């Protein structure tokens, strides 16, 4: 249809100036290149170059004058704190993402259940934790977890429960850090899953109901397969963001007590900026790459597959 519409003027033009047309096409691609040039230079200069530069930095000594090969890495491997950070980053990211996904999934169902008229209002309220800048809301949590004035402990005291050392005890501190991350991230899952729920055709549920499927069967055979893509891609996105998270741990515990809540990002900041050892910090942050790369490959596969379907 389109071809028919534009081929008519082309035929007229083509007989007269085939060379002019080709020149115009050449100009089009060079115009396009210039339009994309700022983007290309930004990505090359400020993302790709630093990414490779950090590989180079990781092979230098602390004053960045001498090439030391892999000794930064062997130094890290022999340090207990490093393995602690590896373990904590994994616990932090996996636990937080699982709970964010679960809570997001459950809340999305409740919002989906209520009449469409009220959904907007509830959705609006439930997304607030995601909208507040994380640094600001983590401060509120820090105050809620305050060792001497914790408002949570005040409530617990009414029920005769001893004060909880929210950020003072290593295991409680890990719990608190994960809790805050879930609080910030769950609304994002809720929004994504709600959008996915709305895209499931109502007829599928009606058909399942006629076939006598109960609530679990409808969930297992209709809802989950239809949402599988969104569930996976949201979880992968969140895994990347959570694994590389900095703000929450930095503000809530700054890695303490005794390094028991450090993750890769906060520890590389501590070592690289505060400790002044940029090469060692860069080496630490490079250990995020494998997990990020795996998640990115899966996301990319999904995106390109869907792109070719459409």
């Amino acid at each position, binding site marked *: 249809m389109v071809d028919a519409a534009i081929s008519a003027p082309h035929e007229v033009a083509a007989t007269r100036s085939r060379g002019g047309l080709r020149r115009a096409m050449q100009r089009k691609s060079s115009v396009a290149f210039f339009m994309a040039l700022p983007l290309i230079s930004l990505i090359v200069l400020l993302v790709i170059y630093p990414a490779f530069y950090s590989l180079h930095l990781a092979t230098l000594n602390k004053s960045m004058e001498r090439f030391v090969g892999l000794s930064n890495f062997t130094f890290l491997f022999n340090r207990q704190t490093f393995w602690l950070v590896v373990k904590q980053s994994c616990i932090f990211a996996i636990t937080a993402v699982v709970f964010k996904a679960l809570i997001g999934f459950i809340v999305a169902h409740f919002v989906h259940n209520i009449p469409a008229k009220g959904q907007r209002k509830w959705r609006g309220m439930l997304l607030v934790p995601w909208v507040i800048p994380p640094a600001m809301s983590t401060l*509120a949590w820090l105050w809620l977890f305050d060792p001497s004035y914790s408002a949570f402990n005040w409530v617990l005291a009414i029920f005769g429960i001893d004060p909880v050392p929210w950020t003072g005890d290593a295991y409680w501190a890990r719990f608190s850090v994960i809790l805050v991350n879930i609080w910030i991230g769950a609304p994002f899952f809720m929004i994504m899953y709600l959008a996915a729920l709305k895209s499931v055709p109502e007829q599928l549920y009606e058909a399942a109901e006629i076939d006598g499927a109960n609530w679990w069967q409808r969930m297992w055979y209709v809802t989950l397969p239809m949402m599988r893509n969104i569930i996976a891609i949201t979880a992968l996105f969140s895994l990347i963001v959570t694994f590389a998270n900095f703000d929450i741990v930095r503000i809530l515990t700054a890695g303490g007590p005794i390094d028991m809540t450090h993750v890769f*990002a906060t520890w590389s900041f501590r070592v690289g900026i505060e400790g002044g050892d940029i090469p060692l910090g860069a080496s630490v942050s490079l250990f995020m790459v494998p997990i990020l790369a795996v998640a990115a490959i899966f996301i990319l596969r999904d995106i390109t597959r869907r792109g070719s379907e459409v």
Partner: protein
Amino acid sequence: MANIAIPAASSAQAAGKPRYGSMSRDRLWALRWSYVFLVLFAFFFLLPPIYMLITSLKTSAEISAATNPWWVFHPTLENYRELLTSNQYLTFFRNSAIVSVTVVTITMLISVPAAFALSRMKFWGSATLATGVFLTYLIPETLLFLPLFKMFAVFNEWTGIQLINRWWVLLVLYPTLTVPFCTWIMIGYFASIPKELDEAALIDGATWTQTLTKIFIPVALPGLIAATIFAFTVSWAQFLYPLAFTTSSDQLVLPVGIITTLIKGDVFNWGQIMTGALLGAAPPLIIYAFLMDYYIAGLTAGATKG
């Protein structure tokens, strides 16, 4: 959880004769339970901001008193008055505002033409570049801040231009966070515009720039607004880059400013910290309150468009 058990029972009866009465009663219970749990979750999600507000209305004396922390006995706006007349806090706010608005402008100037070129005007490597833009969006800032820090230090040695500890260094850094995502969602929005539209314009003799400004930008305006909101909220909330790159108190932006200056040693002035944090959270919240649908469109576009 009534809605789990009862549909099974009613489906067993469905073989005999349909009982509409019980079905609607199930629905009613499902609805009630949904509301109960929604109220619980909303309580959990809104608790910290509400507690921020409660604390911000208290005096230091009341905060350190052993009274009910969840109630304000002597409400006062003293914290707000003090912060809004403090030069330091206003400097943070001004820095944040200038940085965010400028970054939004830079982002749009870079990503809109690039998205147009990538979605409509194919050139050598354009498909690879589109994928590359998306991959760039997945690289976290925590991986790049150390090499960038060193790069700027070297840049200073070479040219004598001091970038570290100047607020404008953020104008260089923030676009790395905003441009890839904005370009990505704009490619999605532009790709959804029917080809007939720009072909008609080209036949009528419009140039590529005219096609972009007269057709693509107006038609993709919702996407443009979503991208703008995204760029603004990301620049407003960014914490790692200003913490690593700026230290003097007159160069700080809001998130870092509140944390480094209002916390003095072990003395926490919680009334002022909560007030500062609440005021700092206000601009994104206000934008969200008025443009919620665009905000959510931008949020879901990242994973669903493409």
